[in-house]
């Protein structure tokens, strides 16, 4: 354990270790790795109280943001910058279900879960449909030119091909949203069984698969959104 006492940036008390017992902020020590669950004082488990995470993020930001420590020496200011960067990074990971689940699996199993190289089977159909639609949208966008005059803009507005593409994009997005909702629901169910150690290996395996589904869903939604924006523009 670390024997050196350090001045806490949050409340000013002298503490040792990684966290200040008084105000629960991270201490300005060089870290190889920060435990994000610990940083936000949350239990490392599949489900997460998003409202609580947001609240803790704001609290910690108030204490740790570089703006709060402008009067410190330059060494300490560099450390504050680094800790603040860690805080922002941790928030981004925990706030995103896919990233959080992968981070949790990585922590518990002590190895980074490999990203899926193949489309998860339950998404195959949706994946191909999106792929085909994207091809059609690209072909449509390619023949369309940016409107430099009112008459060109009017011509593209009245185009029925565009409206049809947008409707199909919306329908696929709706199906994607349903898939994501199902995954979120299953994660909540897995969370209920999390404390049963006999179940743990099965849960971890399943969480990795669900993270894969979310990862592919993210990409699909990204391309749908991107094309929809381009069609709207």
């Amino acid at each position: 354990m670390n024997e050196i006492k350090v001045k806490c940036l949050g409340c000013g008390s002298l503490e040792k270790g990684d966290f200040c017992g008084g105000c629960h902020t991270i201490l300005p020590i060089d870290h190889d790795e920060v435990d994000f669950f610990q940083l936000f004082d949350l239990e490392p488990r599949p489900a997460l109280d998003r409202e609580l995470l947001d609240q803790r993020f704001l609290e910690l930001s108030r204490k740790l943001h570089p703006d709060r420590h402008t009067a410190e020496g330059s060494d300490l200011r560099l450390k504050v910058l680094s800790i603040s960067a860690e805080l922002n990074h941790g928030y981004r990971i925990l706030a995103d279900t896919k990233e959080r689940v992968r981070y949790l699996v990585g922590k518990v199993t002590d190895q980074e879960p490999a990203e899926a190289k193949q489309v998860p089977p339950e998404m195959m159909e949706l994946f191909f449909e999106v792929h085909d639609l994207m091809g059609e949208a690209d072909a449509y966008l390619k023949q369309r030119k940016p409107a430099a005059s009112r008459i060109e803009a009017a011509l593209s507005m009245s185009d029925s091909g565009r409206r049809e593409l947008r409707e199909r994009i919306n329908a696929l997005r709706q199906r994607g949203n349903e898939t994501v909702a199902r995954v979120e629901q299953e994660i909540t169910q897995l969370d209920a069984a999390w404390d049963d150690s006999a179940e743990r290996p099965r849960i971890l395996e399943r969480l990795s698969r669900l993270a894969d589904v979310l990862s592919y869903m993210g990409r699909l939604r990204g391309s749908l959104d991107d094309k929809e924006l381009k069609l709207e523009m």
Partner: protein
Amino acid sequence: MSKIVGIDLGTTNSVVAVIDMGLPVVIPDAGGLRLTPSVVGYNDPEKPLVGVAALRQAALHPADTVTSVKRFMGRRGKEIAGDEMPRTYAVIGRGDQAAKVVAGGNAWRPEEVSARVLAKLKADAEGYLEQEVTRAVITVPAYFNDAQRAATKAAGELAGLTVERIVNEPTAACLAYGLDRVENATVAVYDLGGGTFDISIVEIRDKVFKVLSTTGNTRLGGDDFDRAVMNWLLAQCGTADLAGDLVASARLKEAAEKAKIELSDRTETDINIPFLKGDFSLSARLTRATFESLIAARLDETRSACLQALHDAHLKAAQVDTVILVGGSTRIPLVRGLVESVFGRTPDQSVNPDEAVALGAAIQASILQGGITDTLLLDVTPLSLGIETFGGLMNVIIPRNTTIPTKAGELFTTAVDNQTAVNIHVLQGEREMASDNWTLGRFSLPVAPAPAGSHRVGVQFTIDTDGILKVLARDVNTGHELNVQVKAVADVSDAEVEQMVRESVAHAQADILKRQLVEAQISADEMLRATQKALERYGDRLEAGERKAIDSAWNRVRAAIDADDLSSLKAAKQDLDEATQRLADLMFSDAVQGGDAPRR
């Protein structure tokens, strides 16, 4: 300790503000002016004029007066497109060389010009506060990239200021809006200034201002609208040959800007420029409707950006509680209409569009100084940061809209035996291919010769609270820190600069006109094709007279394209645009009602 001032270093005007007795206030100059024109006159390079004094002599010495220099801050020669070149002074720099502006027979770095404006604001603040001012918070467009931010910081330092923070303009404006409000809210800041456009979505919660998303265009603003009016005015000049006449260009620009401003309150304005060229005096009437048709296409780009920002924030327009307008160009009625149509609500008008950014910068200054303690700003990086990987693709390390400060680490290794260096190409942007993104810089990490893959170099990318990248590298095998110099622009010799200054004076105007002609011909051709298609589908719903007017305008555009004459082509296009107005309206209303547009 000296007071930190907040400075809005704008394209057209700059403003300095400070917190006085707990309230942010704008500091006027000795003459009582609150806005300082961001203009520097180099007619006497030994004694450059700044602000109003420089603006006054602009029409007399157009080639020696630098306006809108912000557009060229931190940019490379090759990044500046022909239609972006100023009409009255020259910009030089080839390829990867840093762009410089030419005035008073010298080439100046844009940050040197900006430093003149900052130095004046510093002096004004010192006069007002009766103390030395050495520290400042300076604002930049949210969509500024790494080099543009670094150049702004350098300008501050050249002016003798320690730049305590670079703050994004829309975020600063949001601070000014929200400082005294206690309620939580989601705010959209639509910031359309003289040269740049930003849209930011900010969540205010318990006095923490957290930016959810930001996007924009650093090459879109009031200058472009002035330019559109200028082109229209040129078309009204008929046969008068104004090519290469800088004084005439400067007078047209002045008249265009004045007309634009007047059309914010009136529906039409008369433009009179006596003896513009020899005996020729220009006299024209510009209606608001025509003005709107001139700027509609460019303005529509901001609609796309708003949609993108909402999408990135994972919000629907209806979830935004307030929309605030910042920047002088938001006085244009068409802009307000566009914002209303995107967000479905009337914009809040409680902030002063010219001063909110500087006031916000002063608030941030006070936060840094420990004066305001209950408010905190969490901003984001506007552009994704990545590196070029195998196959010329960009691998994103830090996605756009990540809260700053932030950091990310990457491990690099050697690909061939006895490789002595690992070369890294750092990029900013959202495109898939590395070459489509903006090169932030390149650096090279030296490694000891060894078999391929046996050496590992860890690189840490940190984006600080100014949104500026810092790179640290460590040889994993030896544990040694490596010195990293990210090189963003190519070096250029003094002799080369001199040569370019000479050439720019000789050719600039002719080159610009040639490029403009080609661009106008291409866009006219597209307009003809669109009109033809529209007529095929909707022609039968027009009256005979309307049809005849369109046909005749169509033929005139066709003839003007072949005639290689810019001014007649622009006039003909304008006529066709007016002749097809009802046709376009017919099609728009059909499309909005939905469904029953005739199919091909």
